[in-house]
């Protein structure tokens, strides 16, 4: 009797277990927002908090992870804005440079470094423009973009005028710089500067919400960009003597099919060894500038299938991520867009075309969020690139629309399943990924040198966030800090191919990226179970290819041009 009862009990338990949902596999990673404890505490000011008169007040600011003092640790730079009313002299918000102390905290060194500038700041990009061994900064604004030359002693000088990089726009309109990227487009070993321009805006004549002409779901909101004059992108060629030449017209940069440029990033789309550029345009077809090897570019976005949605519609492009998510050796593009639309996943087929895999890749499920900064990063170091999206609505007035996602929005995190599809794991991550924040720019970089990429987010009218990524030990990783000698010293444009455990993965050193931001210039690879790297091949920006072999995993390796082996 007792025995029989026991058998029944076991059978019932088995039946219950069989009927229960299979427990989900642990994600293998988690985020912790460490911004406050790390000392990142300056508010980014940007337009009105509850209502905006002009689109100018909506776009927010970018962020950068770069090593300004050459100590090998990533420092953080956060752009700042202002308000229409402005501030009394001496009280204007400024950009902020935070020095990484190496103990998980940062020190605000903005004034010491000579970077206490403000205005309607937008984008930032970094690279060693003068090849003197330290990273310089270029920042974009509504108004004057600025070039800050790194003196190498922990300070910067505003070299905008001296470098010939002045220019505010024409007529009554003011140029509105957004995403930017350092790029050595002519392979002369010197970094040139590309900047997207959103709108040539004249606040004196631009319509305001009071006109009643501009509504979002019935609510009066800031007008544009349709109806406002689109900006033209600019390219400055580094002449090598501390000055630049404006080659925007001569290089074909101004001949893009679309306008209203926001995010910008470098990539070698066709893998020909010459760096191309991709620009996310708002309400317009995106731009893919193919480098024609003769100092000129051609916008091949439309004809390559890399410009529209799957239905052939222009989208409100904001931020960009580039990476080889499907391991076919070519750089794919991911673009964030407006609410009510999906983000876009363009798979690079390797024959000069994009294949829209938004829905096939599992990205088409999310249409609620309005995306800005984004990046490909290997969250669990399993060797497959995942995705992180920063969101936030453009209009503070959406608070009046109950069914709409709010102004502050949660992140979206997609895990790459390795079979061509992504899975939204945001809810499984919980806070801080699910905590609503008014996000805009985001920089991706390994600030704590632990082998995974953390995310620095610049919020609107709020303090920044620093999402420290904690990956579960077990999976291996390797990273590379590249130094060019003949090529530009930052090695922007270099392609790195890593073979480990029989799998080859490809990535690049990129200028710009995300939304108006600069990511870590070091290149990171998750290796999964492979404890070492069989072969690393670097194609430097000048085309030279070198190899290294037998490098251990779990380290950041310094690779210098000319020190590797010929293939």
């Amino acid at each position: 009797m007792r025995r029989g009862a026991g058998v029944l009990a076991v059978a019932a338990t088995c039946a219950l277990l069989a009927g229960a949902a299979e427990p989900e596999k642990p994600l293998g990673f988690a985020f912790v927002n460490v911004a406050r404890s790390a000392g990142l505490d300056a508010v980014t000011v940007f337009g009105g908090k509850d209502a905006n008169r002009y689109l100018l007040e909506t776009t927010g600011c970018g962020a950068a992870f770069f090593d300004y003092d050459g100590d090998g640790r990533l420092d953080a730079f956060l752009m700042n804005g202002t308000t229409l009313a402005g501030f009394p002299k001496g009280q204007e918000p400024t950009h902020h440079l935070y020095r990484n102390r190496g103990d998980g905290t940062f020190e605000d060194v903005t004034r010491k470094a000579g970077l206490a500038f403000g205005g309607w700041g937008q984008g930032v990009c970094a690279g060693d423009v003068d090849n003197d061994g330290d990273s310089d900064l270029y920042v974009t604004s509504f108004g004057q973009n600025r070039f800050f030359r790194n003196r190498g002693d922990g300070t910067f000088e505003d070299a905008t005028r001296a470098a010939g990089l002045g220019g505010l726009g024409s007529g009554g309109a003011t140029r509105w710089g957004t995403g930017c990227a350092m790029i050595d487009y002519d392979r002369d070993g010197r970094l040139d500067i590309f900047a997207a321009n959103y709108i040539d805006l004249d606040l004196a004549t631009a319509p305001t919400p009071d006109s009643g002409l501009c509504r979002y779901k019935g609510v009066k909101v800031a007008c544009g960009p349709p109806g406002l004059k689109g900006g033209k992108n600019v390219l400055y060629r580094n002449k090598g003597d501390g000055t630049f030449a404006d080659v925007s017209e001569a290089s074909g940069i101004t001949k893009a099919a679309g306008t209203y440029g926001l995010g910008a990033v470098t990539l070698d789309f066709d893998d020909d060894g010459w760096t191309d550029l991709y620009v996310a345009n708002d309400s317009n077809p995106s731009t893919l500038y193919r480098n024609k090897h003769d100092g000129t570019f051609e916008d091949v976005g439309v004809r390559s299938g890399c410009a529209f949605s799957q239905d052939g519609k222009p989208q409100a492009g904001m931020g960009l991520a580039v990476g080889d998510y499907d391991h076919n050796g070519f750089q794919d593009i991911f673009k964030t867009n407006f609410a009510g639309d999906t983000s876009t996943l363009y798979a690079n087929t390797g024959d000069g075309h994009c294949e829209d895999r938004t829905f096939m890749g599992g990205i088409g499920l999310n249409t609620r969020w309005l995306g800005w900064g984004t990046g490909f990063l290997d969250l669990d170091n399993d060797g497959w690139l995942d995705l992180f999206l920063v969101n936030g609505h453009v209009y503070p007035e959406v608070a009046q629309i109950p069914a709409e996602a709010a102004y502050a929005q949660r992140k979206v995190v997609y895990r790459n399943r390795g079979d061509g599809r992504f899975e939204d794991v945001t809810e499984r991550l919980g806070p801080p990924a699910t905590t609503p924040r008014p996000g805009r720019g985001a920089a991706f970089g390994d600030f704590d040198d632990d082998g995974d990429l953390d995310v620095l987010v610049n919020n609107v009218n709020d303090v920044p966030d620093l999402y420290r990524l904690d990956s579960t030990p077990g999976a291996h990783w390797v990273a590379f800090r590249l130094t060019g000698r003949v090529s530009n010293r930052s090695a922007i444009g270099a392609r790195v191919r890593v073979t480990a455990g029989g799998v080859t993965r490809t990535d690049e050193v990129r200028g710009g990226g995300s939304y108006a931001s600069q990511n870590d210039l070091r290149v990171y690879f998750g290796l999964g179970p492979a404890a070492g790297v069989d072969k690393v091949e670097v194609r430097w920006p000048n085309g030279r290819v070198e190899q290294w072999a037998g490098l251990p995993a779990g380290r950041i390796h310094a690779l210098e041009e000319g020190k590797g082996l010929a293939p």
Partner: protein
Amino acid sequence: MIPWLLCALLAQAAAASPPPAPDPVPAALAAARAALDAGRPQDALQKLLALGHPEDPRVAHLRGVAEYRADDYAHAIERLTPLLGAFPAGSSEAREVEQVLGLSLYLANRIPEAIPHLEHTREWAADNMELAQVLGMAYVQTAQPDRARASLARTFGVPPDSAAAHLFAAQMMIRVERDAMADEELKRAIAKDPRLPHARYLRAQAALFRGRFDDAIALLKGELEVNPASAMALYLLGDAYVRQEKWGEAIAALQRSVWINPYFSGPYVLLGRAYSARGEPGTAEPMVRRAVEMDPNNRAAHYLLAQLLQQTGRAEEARREFETAARLQGP
């Protein structure tokens, strides 16, 4: 004074003074009104400018009307606002001033200001369906769903508390993206008449737009129970399955949609996408080409055709189709 004396005095005065110059205003107003009635507001405006007398309420009134007809709402508002009360109450001029002012304010997106004038106009034009439509939309835009529904019910000739009234109100709310308000109306419509066609379809459309594919599919299946021959419901069902990559289900729904209504290009585009995704480009291409033939300005069809051509290695044809799709975006 006795009457015969008054008449005599008047006759004497008339004989003593020169004949008055004819008033040019009525004739010019008649000419301007004729130009307006003939659909030439600019012509009417020129005639009124040539006439002068801008301060004359009769001239200002017609100029305001002409400016409204010429889509110059700001000037129409400026012209007509001071004329409120300038004409006898109930006169045709007073009514036209108030009506055109209300419409101009509405079209200038000054909707809360427009509503009182449109409501006054409704008092003497209760059966005017255009007015009821504009007033209904004004109520929608100012988040007054019950008033909106009552006004729109007049437009569509249904009882204001009927399920149909809720449906029409929802449809008009969707047109101006008041999705949450529309969804409430649709729920009330279904509650009042569970077999009302089109209500679940509209809810499904919103669910699909929001990426709630399972909800959309459930609603569309419900729609097909009450409206089984709805080609649009089948098309939308196919769309939802395409987004879920359930190619077999998508093809079945879309094929049924095409059999019911072969004259709409939408299902052919999605059939092309579904067959392409299933690795059947040979079946996909004719579907998409048919969509292009039926609707040469269908951007999505050209774009999908370009993608198919690209996948099958016809790069030059693909480039042309991509460029056609881009051209169809407009300037």
